[in-house]
């Protein structure tokens, strides 16, 4: 026996030791491992177990609505259905994404990109929205087939709808999916959220948005909700009632049909904006769930730039409308009297340059110069007053700076100064520049809204209000025009004369029972034509035509309006913009429908 065993590597007791060794190893290895999992890493795994069963879900807060001053709805929320996935619940993500592509007809690449884009921004076990605004057909298909696709969820999100579309597109702007940039900047935003991109939707974002709520849910392994409680109730966004009067807005929009330009109606006594139209408009509903490439190209290639809000973002030479400012400035000069006359022969020479008036007016005093819009009178004034006084006075009258309206991207226009010209052109201010400035041509640029605010101040006794789009906005004390009361009244009367006088340039605005004052303007256009239209004679004719201004106020016993129309390439102010204001006056003072 012992001989046989000698050939073995094991001694007699080896087997027994072997078994004992195994028992001890088993106990030791596993107790160490158990200690590691259950004591050393216990907190880590407890958290994991919690994560498994507890899920948080955001509850969307409805965005505040927009209403007009009479309570008419302008922007509302409608339910829209989005397709979301919960990554952790999808057994096969690739296949699920492919299926989503099949359901929604979105190209597979796009679905993949969408998934990759959002992956890092969604916490585990939270919905990641892949496709928004599902059609009803898609929705029913997904509803019936989604039980076979764990992890696929249909999420109801409020969707913005602008009831009047183009009519208010420049005022309301639009919401669209938050960009990556916006998501990183604003921690409240979640992937798939809509956020204001333009107009009041952008500037009033804080008021409109509200606060998302949070729901805590307990789920089992298949994602079935066993128990839920709301941790935070959502706080709906605040509704905003605009000062806009939908009736006036709609009317002004209709009047601009086929034209490019801007129409503004302001309540002169409060600065509240009743209508703010920029033509052409665009359908802001198209942007809410991402505009199609084709439509986007159409908008971009439209030579009339529909996205541009002409009322505040386009600047034009004010033309003869600026004579109102010039006359006001002249009137407060101690050495200039309104009755002083000059002779208009139809042109004024300066050195070897000749500056023309549009007709020979003969002897012209200050009032006649406004009523008949005589350029010669203002060449002479410009020469006498000089750029320094003119620009200071113009800025005091609200030009060359933004009005502060609650819309993004407002431009301030330009009131030229000596310094500005030196910096811009490396050239001194010349006599001819004074001539041009005096009749609102040359370097000077204004926005239609600045003109409307200025005219309102002429009509209301000299208060430059911040143009307000919100009905309940707290009144800010207006800035006063740096004019004397008599000079303001002089210009005010001259504007009325322009409408009521036999030779006034705004005679067509005459309205029975209403005090109407107006001033026409024509701003010369140079080099605005889009290149690709150069060969079309009709187009050339259009693009070389002047812009026409009509700035007016109208008052009866209980209200005063400031009304400004600018029609691009409309020819003279009286001919192009006049009819628009004319028709608006008819609408505003038609007693068959209520206003304010």
């Amino acid at each position, binding site marked *: *026996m012992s001989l*046989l*065993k000698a*050939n*073995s*590597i*094991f001694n007699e007791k*080896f*087997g*027994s030791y*072997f*078994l*004992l060794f*195994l*028992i001890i190893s*088993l*106990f030791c*290895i*596993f*107790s160490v*491992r*158990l*200690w590691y*999992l*259950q*004591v050393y*890493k*216990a907190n*880590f*795994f*407890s958290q*994991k*177990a919690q994560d*498994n*069963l507890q899920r948080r879900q955001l509850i969307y807060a409805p965005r505040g609505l927009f209403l007009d001053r009479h309570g008419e709805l302008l922007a509302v929320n409608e339910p829209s259905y989005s397709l979301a996935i919960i990554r*952790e619940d*999808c*057994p096969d993500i690739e296949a699920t994404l492919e299926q989503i592509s099949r359901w929604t007809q979105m190209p597979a690449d796009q679905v993949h990109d969408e998934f990759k884009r959002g992956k890092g921004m969604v916490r585990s076990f939270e919905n990641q929205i892949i496709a928004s605004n599902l059609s009803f057909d898609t929705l029913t298909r997904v509803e019936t087939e989604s039980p076979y696709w764990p992890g696929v969820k249909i999420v109801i999100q409020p969707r913005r709808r602008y009831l009047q579309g183009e009519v208010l597109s420049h005022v309301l702007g639009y919401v669209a999916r938050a960009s990556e940039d916006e998501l990183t900047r604003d921690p409240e935003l979640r992937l798939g959220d809509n956020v204001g991109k333009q107009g009041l939707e952008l500037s009033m974002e804080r008021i409109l948005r509200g606060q998302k709520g949070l729901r805590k849910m*307990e*789920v*089992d*392994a*298949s994602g079935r909700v*066993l*128990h839920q409680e709301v941790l935070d109730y959502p706080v709906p966004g605040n509704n905003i009632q605009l000062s806009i009067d939908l009736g006036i807005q709609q009317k002004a929009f209709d009047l601009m049909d086929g034209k490019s330009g801007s129409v503004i109606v302001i309540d002169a006594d409060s600065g509240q904006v009743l209508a703010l139209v920029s033509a052409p408009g665009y359908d802001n509903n198209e942007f809410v769930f991402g505009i199609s490439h084709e439509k986007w190209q159409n908008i971009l290639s439209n030579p009339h730039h529909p996205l541009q809000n002409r009322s505040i973002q386009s600047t034009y030479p004010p033309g003869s409308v600026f004579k109102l400012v010039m006359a006001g400035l002249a009137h407060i000069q101690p050495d200039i009297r309104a009755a002083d006359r000059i002779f208009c022969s139809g042109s004024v020479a300066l050195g070897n340059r000749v500056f023309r008036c549009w007709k020979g007016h003969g002897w012209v005093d200050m009032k006649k110069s406004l009523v008949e819009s005589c350029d010669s009178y203002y060449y002479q004034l410009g020469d006498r007053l000089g750029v320094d006084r003119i620009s200071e006075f113009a800025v005091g009258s609200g030009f060359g700076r933004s009005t502060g309206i609650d819309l993004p991207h407002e431009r301030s226009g330009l009131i030229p100064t000596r310094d500005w010209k030196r910096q811009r052109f490396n050239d001194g201010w010349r006599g001819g520049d004074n001539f041009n400035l005096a009749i609102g041509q040359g370097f000077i640029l204004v926005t239609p809204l600045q003109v409307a605010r200025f005219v309102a101040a002429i009509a209301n006794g000299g208060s430059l209000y911040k143009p307000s789009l919100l009905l309940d906005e707290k009144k800010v004390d207006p800035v006063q025009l740096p004019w004397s009361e008599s000079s303001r009244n002089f210009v005010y009367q001259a504007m009325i004369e322009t409408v009521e006088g036999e030779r006034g340039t705004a005679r067509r605005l005459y309205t029975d029972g209403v005090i109407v004052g107006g001033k026409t303007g024509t701003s010369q256009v140079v080099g605005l034509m889009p290149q690709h239209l150069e060969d079309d004679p009709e187009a050339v004719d259009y693009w070389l035509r002047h812009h026409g201004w009509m700035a007016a106020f109208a008052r009866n016993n209980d209200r005063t309006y400031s009304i400004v129309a600018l029609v691009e390439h409309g020819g003279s102010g009286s001919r192009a913009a006049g009819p628009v204001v004319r028709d608006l006056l008819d609408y505003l003072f038609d007693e068959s429908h209520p206003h304010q």
Partner: protein
Amino acid sequence: MVDRQLFLHINWSILAIVILLFIAGVLNLYSASAFRIGDGTAITPFYKRQILWGVISILAMITTMLFDYRHLKNSSWFIFLVAVASLIAVLFWGKTIYGAQRWLDLGFFNFQPSELAKVGVVLVTSAFLSKINHSLGLRDILKVLIIVIIPAYLIARQPDLGSALLLVFLMAGMLIYHGIRKNTFKTLLLTTPILIPSGWIFLKDYQKVRLLTFLNPGHDPLGSGYHVIQSQIAIGSGGFWGKGFMEGTQSQLRFLPEKHTDFAFSVYGEEWGFIGSLILLFLFSLFLYQIFLSSEEAKDKFGTMLCVGVFFYFFWQIFINIGMVLGLMPVVGVPLPFVSYGGTSLLVNFIMVGLVLNVSMRRFMFKS
């Protein structure tokens, strides 16, 4: 009375441990069968069937103890051949459940021939080795290998990798226990590393995936790695004291897979914590130690080898199963003895215990 004498010599501690393990298993099963519906709880009747099987199994164990185990030395071949025959039968007439063809429908219950094969292999190998009084040479090892490889192959084809591996492992354990010649041992040490990769070819795709997953469980957390990860979360989240009976969220909310069978220990670990797990582990160790003592006290070589066979039969199952749920082993479908749900396996477990008790109670029976 001989019978009365025998009764006195029964190894009561083995019996007590096994009953304790079985009760722990049934309680655990009761908890694992519960799942939350809304705010309430529903229970599936798995535990009742397990108790029924427990009663049947204990009766079978007692039957196994009644006759002298030495009779088995001669009939071991017969049992082995019946097992192989039923394995072949399963290939043709077996019932397929969850993609594996493992069951023979005997009318009153579904019989798993692989379980019978385990008993057969333990008996045949014990009988074979008890006749050899010298250290094993290559020839002896090959003989045993050929005997065992037939049922192992048939079982692997079902496919039931866990049971097939168990056969090979328990055979290897018995061979090493018996003693191997120095040179033979060296040869084996050199050739096994070459044989293991070639075994890869015979694995089914899902088995390969399981092995790869074991090597890197985080790779595909919702695919094959899911089981291992969820199991570790369950056990780890149990902490020191455990979440309490029927309070385990991982099992109650069904994040744990196969919680009645292969992952029963995860349910247990989540609810009873480190303390409870350690007690269970200690019971298993004590159980193995008692079998070891029985093998030492056995009066003949066959009895010793029988106990050693049963030792390895339990050892490997405990080792593979707990190793798997603790994330130390690949996912192989091996149940935890007495704790996992499963009638046939419970029956065989008790029969195996019966064999050990049989050997142990007859340790003073005859003089050599």
